[in-house]
């Protein structure tokens, strides 16, 4: 059953998958709570433009995707500050820009080929050692940044005005977070593909919100659901010969449905267990 572990490409796939399984909820929990889930879609589309640009210029596509995503992050922050009330409009504009640039670069390079499909749908089993190194490097940087800014991100997600009034450098923290989001999406698309990457960012968090009774518990469950989704999805993909990216996201959706059922039918059951063992509190 575990004979896949003998293959180097499967080892790389699992390591890459685990890194992304940690990265996605690290960013996702704040995106979902701030109702910025569409930012994931935005960076996915911009990453596609970066990949297409990389194919057109024959520069390493993943690096191009990372670079263009960081540029998009900077533009988004400027637009958000200028049109604070219309954040969703700024995101919609960037999505349009991303996909239109992608279409143009794809048509210029004539690169409707297997390489492009591997970025669209994910190619975790085709991850090369240099891809894994880049994913690991980005993973370490993003997780460290978010851990260091965890309390600021929490306060901003809960009440941005109060955070600003308290003297927290909200604009700086937002800029760092958006850059971290851009990097996360760009490396995660190798695992689940551009079309599904925002699902891996949001669905495990959505499942965790059904069972978490505190912020700490919600974050913990997000990691749990994301890691289990990647492990089970890859396992399923190997043994049943399914697309890995789709399998991972489908498993995460199954966890989401199970979490809803748990919440609906067991009431405080699971949440009581969560509260007692994870958040350290006791139910009243």
């Amino acid at each position, binding site marked *: 059953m575990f004979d896949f572990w003998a293959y180097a490409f499967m080892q790389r796939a699992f390591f890459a998958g685990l890194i992304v399984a940690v990265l996605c909820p690290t960013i996702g929990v704040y995106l979902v*709570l701030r109702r910025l889930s569409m930012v994931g879609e935005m960076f996915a589309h911009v990453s596609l433009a970066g990949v297409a640009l990389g194919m057109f210029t024959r520069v390493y596509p993943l690096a191009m995707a990372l670079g263009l995503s960081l540029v998009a992050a900077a533009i988004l922050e400027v637009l958000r500050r200028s049109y604070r009330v219309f954040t969703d409009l700024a995101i919609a504009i960037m999505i349009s820009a991303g996909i239109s640039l992608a279409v143009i670069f794809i048509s210029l390079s004539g690169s409707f080929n297997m390489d492009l499909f591997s970025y669209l749908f994910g190619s975790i089993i085709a991850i090369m050692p240099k891809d894994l190194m880049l994913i690991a490097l980005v993973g370490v940087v993003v997780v460290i940044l978010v851990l*260091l*800014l*965890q*309390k*600021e991100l*929490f*306060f901003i*997600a*809960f*009440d941005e*005005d*109060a*955070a*600003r*009034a*308290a*003297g*927290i*450098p909200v604009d700086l923290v937002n800029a760092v977070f958006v850059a971290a989001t851009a990097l996360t999406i760009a490396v995660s698309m190798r695992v689940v593909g551009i079309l599904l990457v925002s699902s891996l960012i949001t669905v495990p968090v959505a499942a965790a*919100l059904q069972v*978490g*009774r*505190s*912020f*700490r*518990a*919600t974050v913990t469950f997000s990691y749990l659901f994301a890691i289990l989704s990647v492990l089970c999805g890859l396992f399923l993909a190997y043994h049943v010969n399914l697309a890995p990216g789709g399998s991972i996201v489908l498993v995460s959706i199954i966890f989401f449905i199970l979490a809803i059922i748990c919440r609906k039918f067991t009431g405080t059951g699971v949440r009581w267990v969560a*509260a007692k063992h994870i*958040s350290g*509190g*006791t*139910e*009243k």
Partner: protein
Amino acid sequence: MSQPILELEHVSFHYGARPVLEDINFTVPAGDFLGIVGPNGSGKSTLLKIIVGLLRPSSGKVRLFGVDHDRFKEWTKIGYVAQNVAAFNHSFPATVTETVMAGLTASLGLFNRPGKEERMQVEEALESVDVLSLKNNTIGELSGGQQQRVFIARALVSRPRLLILDEPTVGVDMENKERFYELLTVLRKQHGITLMMVSHDIGVVTEQVQSVACLNKKLYFHGTPGDFWSEDTLYRVYGPAARVLHHSH
């Protein structure tokens, strides 16, 4: 005489061409309890947002603890409870403890994590507003009055010297309103906190506060509650339709 906590000099604010505040001048001494009243759209909340730095005045000077606003860095000396805090996302997965701990974010500084001392400060703040027993509950499952107290605890946890409250009793029932004003009295008398409160409830406010500022784009009155009622301020600010109803309880 001790330094004023807040000084406003010729403060004006415009949204585009529309004036919201015009030439506001007053000071708030340490230990005062100032009530700010005025009709809808009079600029009360805008004034509070200027004081806490969420908006920049179009002209004029604001000084906090003797320091010009632009150079003021000690924002942890100011606690702020915004208008309509009950309009937050009720499904946000935060416990009461996590909510109040957020009030220490700025004082901890970037990259630092809360420790035992911060957890004790949070418990002290929760105890001061009488919600310690709810510390492990999620914020969304509390009543409006309890949520209000939690947000006040969040503003108090950093031990501010000035507490600014914008319409703090909106959506709060009568019993909790009375408990709320008792809490403010304790904060002022026992903890020496200077208070500023915006409210629509002129009658209640003028019973509780030490000084009143009456605003309708301009400052029409700043003085004691007794003088507020003896002048024709209400007529000048609210217009001839304003009526005073006296209740005997």
